[in-house]
């Protein structure tokens, strides 16, 4: 306790030098908290963006769809009977907000002068509007079930076709038995998914319209939206059990299994964060070590006196490291406070990010102030403070008493 008190008094007595060390720790901790919070916010934004645009939380297909569906899609559709059974099952799970069907197709759309290849989906307009909150209508109106021949086209597609809201187009696609069919489509709205390549080819129509086009009552998949993303795995397990008990020939995919790009982006950002963390910690360690070394050099005479009156080498090491520990604790607390203020300020200012490559939408910068990041960063800051004081502490303990006492 006495040694702790001496260390604390040393920190207070040399307040200018302590302040320099504190600022280094504070800067390091605050910058790591902000950068970590920023990465975390980006992950969440990206994750929710993809869930609420195309993927939903869980997708349900006929068994084999993901392996063979691309070459033989008509063989892997969900019949109305199967859809009803799935609907009954998902209705029994409280966390499921909605289940919406999609019938995917590809075809050609023409305005009479130009024809463009499209990929599209027949959707339940009401449910899909709830799920696809990341898909924005940038011109015209949303799609409603009453607009039986209405359609939403991607912004790039509308531009390429040079059409306006209310114009009619002709959509050609193959039916489920391989024949060709065509329907009229009235352009009710222009949509933006945020992904330029997708906006150049995407079309969304009412499910009934696409089923008429393809001569089928089946759908490709049912997409589930849950109340919280964290409920994905528990709901998946419940559904797997129900489907297994009922011997339904289905397969399920969660959003993270489908979002390959998301997983790659997360891995990339995590590695960047790790690298930056290393650099910041190195700078902080260097700064602490330097100021602690200065402190030891300035106090050579004093350390010599302490040793002369009976302090052991380990006692000196402990004293210097305790000083570093005290500075580490105060610096971390100051860093957390600074990190909190900066995180809240940056989020409140709503700076807009530049439009990412290949995207058409921007979004505001957010910085999360997360307990996990705070604890990890604070612990790292404290450990770095103590570890970087080892060399100065050992150097102080090895001073020859006689030489130290003569040091002016």
């Amino acid at each position: 306790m006495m040694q702790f008190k001496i260390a604390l008094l040393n920190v207070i007595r040399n307040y200018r030098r302590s302040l320099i060390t504190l600022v280094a720790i504070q800067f390091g901790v605050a910058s790591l908290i902000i950068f970590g919070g920023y990465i975390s916010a980006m992950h969440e934004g990206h994750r929710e963006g993809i869930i609420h645009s195309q993927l939903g939380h869980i997708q349900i297909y006929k068994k084999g769809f993901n392996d063979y569906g691309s070459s033989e899609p008509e063989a892997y559709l969900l019949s109305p009977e199967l859809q009803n059974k799935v609907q009954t099952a998902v209705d029994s799970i409280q966390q499921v907000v909605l289940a919406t069907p999609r019938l995917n197709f590809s075809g050609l759309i023409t305005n009479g002068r130009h024809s463009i290849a499209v990929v599209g989906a027949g959707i339940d307009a009401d449910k899909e509007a709830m799920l696809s909150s990341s898909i924005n209508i940038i011109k015209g109106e949303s799609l409603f079930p009453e607009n039986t021949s209405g359609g939403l086209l991607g912004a790039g597609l509308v531009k390429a076709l040079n059409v306006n809201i209310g114009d009619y187009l002709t959509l050609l696609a193959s039916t489920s038995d391989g024949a060709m069919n065509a329907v009229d489509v009235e352009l009710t709205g222009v949509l933006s998914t945020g992904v330029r390549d997708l906006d150049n080819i995407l079309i969304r129509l009412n499910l009934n319209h696409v089923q008429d086009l393809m001569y089928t009552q089946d759908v490709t998949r049912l997409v589930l939206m849950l109340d919280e993303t964290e409920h994905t795995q528990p709901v998946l397990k419940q559904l797997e059990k129900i489907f297994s008990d009922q011997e339904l020939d289905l397969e399920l995919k969660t959003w993270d299994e489908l979002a390959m790009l998301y997983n790659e982006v997360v891995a990339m950002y995590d590695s960047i964060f790790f690298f930056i963390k290393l650099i910041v910690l190195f700078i902080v360690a260097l700064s602490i070590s330097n100021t602690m070394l200065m402190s030891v050099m300035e106090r050579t005479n004093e350390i010599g006196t302490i040793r002369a009156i009976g302090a052991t080498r380990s006692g000196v090491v402990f004293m210097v490291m305790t000083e570093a520990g005290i500075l580490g604790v105060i610096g971390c607390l100051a860093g957390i406070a600074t990190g909190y203020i900066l995180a809240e300020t940056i989020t409140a200012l709503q700076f807009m990010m530049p439009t990412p490559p290949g995207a058409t939408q921007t979004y505001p910068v957010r910085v999360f102030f997360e307990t996990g990041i705070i604890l990890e960063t604070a612990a790292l800051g404290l450990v770095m403070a103590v570890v970087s004081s080892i060399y100065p502490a050992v150097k102080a303990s090895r001073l020859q008493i006689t030489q130290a006492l003569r040091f002016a």
Partner: protein
Amino acid sequence: MMKLTRNIFVFCIVWLGMMLPAFADSLTHIPETQELREIEITKLQTLDELSEQQQRLLWFIQASYWMIGKNAQFEQIETLDKQIESYLKSHSKDYELMALRGSIISFKVTYVLQNLSKVRQFGSQANRLMDRAVNAAPENLGARLQRGINSAIVPSFLRRAHYGVSDLSYLKQELGENIAPGFLNMLDTFLALALRNDNKQDEARTLWKTVIAKKDPVWSVQAAQYLDDM
């Protein structure tokens, strides 16, 4: 952040409440001040039985009162939302009320800003209700006013501003010369906001300058502030 967003809602609802009486024939009348709203709510709640019109009026006033009140609880807003949802099941053609429900759900977003999943859920539900109301009854001024202002004030990256432009322009066009000066200034201020968010900065600037020139005690100040922020 949360307070800022809530204040924007409060600001709009206050003025909606103050201006709505000018169009009592086509829009639900909401008392102008919090005190008057409180009196009206108490009066309606003491009645043994409410007619449908009274019940509807109560919801409109409660929505304004709670959203303006600083102590509005999420549970109160949630209950109001559920009551209107239940009513709309048997009155699916009450598009003004449907749009009000959209506004209420949009307001709920301010309570869950830290939960992006909920933000998206409430946001898309609110937008859908307002879009449905306007799509089903494009001539309903109440529905278009609710969606127009909501679309103007939400952040531009949500890309709802074009709805604000079309709805508020429609209101101006439909109301023509019968429009009260204060209400017109409010419409112009929000129309300019929608234009700015729709990347039509020059038109927005011109419109705000027009409002400033009218020296309206509230809207000229507000327009000047928006203009400074550009």
